[in-house]
């Protein structure tokens, strides 16, 4: 069973007032998410991640195509009964306490009386807000509001949890807590779908990922499948004759000229470095360094987006996606600021 099934989902937003023209935010998206495990929907800002999630929740209506949630059409009330959702940068009601909010939402799921109170209380305890449950939400920090958002997403004991940028705006401790919670939800047998542009989080959490660019799914699979073609060896040499560079062009993934006669060659994962080094020596070049490059989701991501590690245009991704205008915009690898919030996918 697939808790989420997407069939050719397309969403156009009209742009302009007098003669509105469609802007395609999601373009013919099709994928299935298997039961259990964590599925990461990745992509740079404006790739269509949030739009896709909102289409799954019936907050937006598709231009064409359709989606199924837990075997029911997207937006079906029965499906939402078993669904938990955390929106990006959630905001709730300032006049309520966390406990009142959770009890209100638990009531909408049909829980009554003591059961309702117990569920609200358990969800708040689980996100570490048990002691602050009676404080008005207006006094909460951003991290605490995010935790309340997580609590309301699990108050109904959902089979499917959808989290839109769950790490957005959290400090490192908050991010670690959310990561642990996502893994705990997975261990309980729930399916978790989350969108993110923080690749290190996805790498640690996801059993499968889908990479979006300009509204199109440009890659989808397990982390292992996506990173299979990444990694390899960096070989740097000086006094390299230009004829040698031309001769090995087919064997290397990329050649970077550092200075006159000094080049860095990126050998693909399947290419052994020894023969290449021997050829370098035979051509009269001087070996400077040899460094293995580990397989990484970031590289797979860049490859899928048609961009190399330096942000230059690369060969297209596995499904032949076009190059986005600025595919690195908003992308956060491990070395980048984890607190940057993404802007809405809405044009």
């Amino acid at each position: 069973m697939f808790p989420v099934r997407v069939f050719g989902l397309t969403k156009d937003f009209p742009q302009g007032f007098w003669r509105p023209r469609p802007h395609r935010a999601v373009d013919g998206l099709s994928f299935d998410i298997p039961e259990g495990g964590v599925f990461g929907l990745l992509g740079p800002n404006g790739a269509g991640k949030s739009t896709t999630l909102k289409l799954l929740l019936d907050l937006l209506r598709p231009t064409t195509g359709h989606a199924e949630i837990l075997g029911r059409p997207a937006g079906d009330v029965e499906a939402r009964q078993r669904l938990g959702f955390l929106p990006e940068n959630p905001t709730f009601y300032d006049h309520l306490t966390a406990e009142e909010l959770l009890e209100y939402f638990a009531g909408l799921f049909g829980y009554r009386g003591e059961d309702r109170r117990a569920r609200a209380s358990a969800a708040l305890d689980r996100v570490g807000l048990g002691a602050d449950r009676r404080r008005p939400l207006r006094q909460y920090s951003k991290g605490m509001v995010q935790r309340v958002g997580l609590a309301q997403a699990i108050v109904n004991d959902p089979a499917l949890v959808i989290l839109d940028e769950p790490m957005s705006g959290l400090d490192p401790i908050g991010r670690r807590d959310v990561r642990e919670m996502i893994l705990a939800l997975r261990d309980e047998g729930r399916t978790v779908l989350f969108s993110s542009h923080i690749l290190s989080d996805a790498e640690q959490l996801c059993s499968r990922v889908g990479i979006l660019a300009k509204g199109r799914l440009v890659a989808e699979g397990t982390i292992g499948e996506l990173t299979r073609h990444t990694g390899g060896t960096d070989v740097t040499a000086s006094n390299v004759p230009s004829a040698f560079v031309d001769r090995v062009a087919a064997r290397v993934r990329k050649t970077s000229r550092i200075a006159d006669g000094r080049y860095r060659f990126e050998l693909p994962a399947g290419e052994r470095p020894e023969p290449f080094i021997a050829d370098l020596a035979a051509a009269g070049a001087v070996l400077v360094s040899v460094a293995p490059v580990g397989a990484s989701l970031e590289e797979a991501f860049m490859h899928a987006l048609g961009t190399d590690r330096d942000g230059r245009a690369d060969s297209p991704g596995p499904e032949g996606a076009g190059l986005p205008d600025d595919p690195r915009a908003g992308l956060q690898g491990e070395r980048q600021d984890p607190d940057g919030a993404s802007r809405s996918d809405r044009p």
Partner: protein
Amino acid sequence: MTARRIALVAWHVFKEHVRDRVLYAIAGFALLLVAASILLGQLTAGEDVKIIKDLGLAVIEGAGLLMTIFLGVGLVSREIDRRSIISLLAKPLPRWQFIVGKYLGLVLTIVVNVAAMTAALLVMLKYLDWRALPVERAAWDAVAADPRLLLAALMIAIELALLTAVALFFSAFSSSALLSLAFTIGIYVTGVFSLDLRRFGDIVEAPSLVSHVVAAIGWIVPAFSAFDIKAQVVHGLPVPASYLLLTSCYGVVYAAAVVVAAIVVFSRREFT
């Protein structure tokens, strides 16, 4: 389950308004005005009870109008602005139940306020009655704490419930609270003069087409002035039961139709 979800949303709206300082500011100001009418009444010998009733009912209606318009136009648009709607609509809450719950929540707020202010007015009139000399009582058109004041308050409540539906419709329709405010006030003012608009051709010399268009507007907009029985109650004039019944039915049916229209509009909305 349907009724329960609607009741939950309505109770949440009521709770939100009860904790809203704006509501207390309006209610406090209204109570102050009702109390001030005692002073005004003392300046006009023999007319004090009439003035207190007249002013009291006017204040109840005015404060109710302020509450309805200012709270009503933000009923849905505020949820959209602060994006709490995203979390809410991801719950098993159909959109029509959300709208009906929102409507009933504000109506409950308004009814409680009208009831509280009417009770304050009746207590004050009862006090005047207790203090008055028999000769003073003889000059009154009706008893001081006239139970018919409750009828006037009921008609005000129905009028406000209808206006709440109008405000809700514009709140569900427009993303801008300011635009909703302008539309709601516009419809209210037009509705107050609806009976005059219907007779536009008789009052003003105008081309036939203009007269017909204006008369049509008079028939289409809610006839808010029909709910005004303040003068009859204050002066002890009869108000036929059939009139009260028909006007009440008109208000309820019209409000229901506008809420249905709000549901239709809101069901088509998308949330980015």
